[in-house]
């Protein structure tokens, strides 16, 4: 297979142009060629997107070659370069639902193989269990003999039909993936159960926030009032219904209380109804969708940050809130209790009464002035979660994975059938065989040696920023667009 063959050293004209599968950097630690794959990337915005962007930037900084593969977003298709030579492939794959692509297990192989071969990828790193493209890429990468890593960003239940099906697919997808990364311990437990994994091949590496993006500025807040800030998508899973109960309850009790709510979604109507019914137009401000760069400007207007999520794997929002020096009040769900130390967060049960109680406690403390000053909170938080740390720990996973042998086809079939049950295992073993035959066919049509090797922008021999000519080429606005991730 390709991986083994390439380790043996590519033949022909390529051998003098490309380094071996794993290049060794100046410090002696191996440098990898990493391909991040996910359906979710800029211009889509969210936790997964910024995670991929920031992690890639930090890995490039550490000397690795990183490219990102996602599907085309409207007019944004083809190859784009972002800051520091981060190359993004926007592949023309059909989007099905919620920005996730259609999967047939096969149709993406020609394109993905082309990318993997052109870029001399050694590790394929897929993100988010909702991303069909991520699972596809894992499947093909294993067929091609590449090492695979998967990061799970979300929690899933076990009770309903849809989760039973998706969990089965996850089992199939992860049973021969080399290593899995989860963003919190709760998320690890969840993933291990969902995909019946060995917990020792699952690492916990939390998300991070850029502390320089979220600095406190107490002068921006109105200290004659107490402001509660909520920044979240207005959807059921974020507990907006609870918020709709908290607002009237507290506004009636505290005349100097006001709410600032950033975000958009189908549950906006609930908040609007509450505002209408209790005549709170001057005290509940609905800002609508926020751009990432505006989030900080909203956060620093508040004294208290409120998170009412019903489920959350990590919750970057509360870290951002705390980083801006706010008192954080949150529901005790998912991985949230792991994220902030006790003195920086007030945890409540996901009920209106419990959340109100927690908020009242914090309001009383705020009034009496016994809360930590924003600057102190910021300095506590800023060192907790940094992208550099995330990249360092992810690099360790890559180093470990690069040493492992990718299961050959027969081993893979055995694993599938032993691990995923007789029916699903056999079906997907058959699919794996077909995928392998399809790969052979593609290799016969267009041998790897014929495929051009891409110029490295990042990585040990990255040309980004070295020649003056290359600097003008990439689209300049990308940098600005994704500057904040």
């Amino acid at each position, binding site marked *: 297979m390709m991986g083994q063959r390439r380790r043996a050293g590519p033949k022909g004209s390529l051998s003098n142009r490309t380094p071996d599968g794993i290049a060794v950097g100046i410090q002696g630690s191996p440098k990898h060629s990493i391909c991040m794959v996910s359906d979710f990337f800029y211009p889509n915005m969210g936790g997964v997107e910024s995670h991929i962007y920031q992690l890639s930037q930090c890995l490039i900084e550490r000397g690795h070659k990183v490219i990102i593969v996602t599907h085309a977003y409207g007019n944004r298709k083809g190859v784009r370069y972002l800051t520091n030579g981060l190359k993004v492939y926007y592949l023309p794959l059909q989007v099905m639902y919620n920005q996730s692509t259609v999967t047939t297990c096969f149709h993406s192989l020609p394109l993905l193989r082309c990318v993997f071969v052109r870029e001399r990828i050694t590790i394929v790193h897929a993100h988010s269990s909702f991303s069909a493209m991520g699972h596809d890429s894992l499947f093909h990468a294993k067929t091609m003999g590449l090492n695979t890593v998967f990061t799970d960003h979300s929690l899933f239940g076990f009770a309903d039909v849809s989760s039973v099906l998706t969990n089965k697919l996850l089992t199939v997808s992860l049973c021969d993936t080399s290593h899995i990364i989860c963003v919190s311990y709760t998320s690890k437990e969840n993933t291990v159960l969902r995909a019946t994994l060995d917990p020792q091949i699952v690492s916990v590496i939390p998300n991070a926030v850029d502390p320089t993006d979220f600095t406190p500025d107490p002068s921006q807040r109105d200290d004659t009032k107490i402001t509660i800030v909520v920044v979240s998508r207005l959807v059921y899973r974020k507990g907006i219904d609870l918020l709709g109960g908290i607002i009237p309850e507290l506004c009636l009790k505290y005349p100097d209380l006001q709410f600032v709510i950033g975000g958009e979604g189908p549950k906006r109507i609930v908040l609007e109804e*509450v505002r209408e019914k209790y005549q709170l137009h001057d005290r509940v401000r609905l800002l609508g969708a926020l751009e990432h760069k505006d989030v900080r400007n909203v956060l620093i207007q508040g004294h208290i940050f409120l998170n009412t999520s019903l489920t959350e794997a990590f919750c970057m929002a509360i870290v951002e809130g705390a980083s801006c020096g706010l008192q954080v009040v949150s529901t005790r769900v998912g991985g949230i209790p792991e994220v902030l130390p006790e003195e920086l967060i007030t945890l409540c049960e996901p009920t209106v009464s419990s959340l109100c109680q927690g908020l009242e406690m914090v309001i009383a403390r705020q009034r009496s002035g016994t809360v930590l000053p924003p600057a102190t909170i910021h300095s506590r938080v800023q060192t907790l979660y940094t992208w550099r740390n995330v990249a360092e720990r992810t690099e360790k996973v890559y180093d470990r994975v690069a040493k492992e042998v990718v299961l050959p086809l027969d081993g893979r079939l055995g694993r599938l059938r032993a691990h995923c049950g007789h029916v699903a295992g056999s079906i997907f073993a058959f699919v794996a065989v077909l995928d392998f035959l399809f790969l052979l066919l593609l290799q016969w049509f267009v041998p790897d040696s014929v495929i051009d090797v891409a110029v490295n922008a990042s990585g040990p021999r990255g040309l980004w920023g070295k020649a003056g000519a290359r600097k003008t080429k990439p689209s300049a606005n990308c940098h600005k667009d994704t500057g904040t991730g």
Partner: protein
Amino acid sequence: MFRRDWTGRNPVSKCIIGSLVMGADSDPGAPSAVPWRKVLYERQPFPDNYVDRRFLEELRRNVGVRRYRYWPVVREAGLVTQQLSCVAAFLTLWWYMYQGQLYPFTLLLAGLLCALLGYGLYEALGGPRTEGRTRLADLQSAAIFLAFTFGFSPVLKTLTESVSTDTVYAMSALMLLAHLVTFPYAQPSPPGSLSLNAALFGSVCLASRLPGALHTFAMVTCALLVFALWPCLLHRLRDRAPRGFPWAAALVSLGGIGGLASQSPGGAVLLALAQLALTLLCPLLLLWLQEHKDNIHGPWDEAEIHEDLSRFLQ
């Protein structure tokens, strides 16, 4: 489904784990002086893939799972059985009408008698009455309904004339099946709109194949008695006279089988077998499957909102 031994991987994976363990910084089982804590905000002296003894300690199994007992389940299954018999009884009556062995007047008289008896029983059982609803109002709606059905019965009679008889039969079969499937067995009063509509649509289809307009009228009235009013009475019976309910269900079931036997003994045997399986075997199956239930819960579950939050909007 969750397999209990997640460590039970095949030898290949064990090799991989073995090589992992040998890694310089990645001994997941290394003992340490400091106890591991399930927090992310502290740098802990453990590798990222460390698995503590407390891993999955918050896992809960089968929270709030109900343990069923056989006879109560059988009792509840009686509701399904009798509904099946109701459909069989209705079809038998239709068949008698179709053959001309039953006169519409007889059916109407019997229907009236049953309705009066049922109404009396319903009242006698007591229970909550809809606010502001008097007997006069009940009589009024019955009169309006009868008048309209009677007035429209010639229309109903000719409604499906242009449709082939096979199609009409297939459609009614489908509709009666839909009625059985969508019938709200958990709360049979009032019968769910989908289920009731399906049943009435099926009966109108069948009634339109009868020889006269009066036949059609009698048949539709009968359908209303069987599919709309009887479930209400049965529900009240279940609520107010739990002891009487199994007997009523059994009586209806036997009635359906008996009626069918007078026309088609083979069909009656099949119906009886189906009902036996439904009442006696299916509960057994449920109980047996219930033992295999392995529901897992933990901190990753989405929190449920139990409060009634609409009170803030009223």
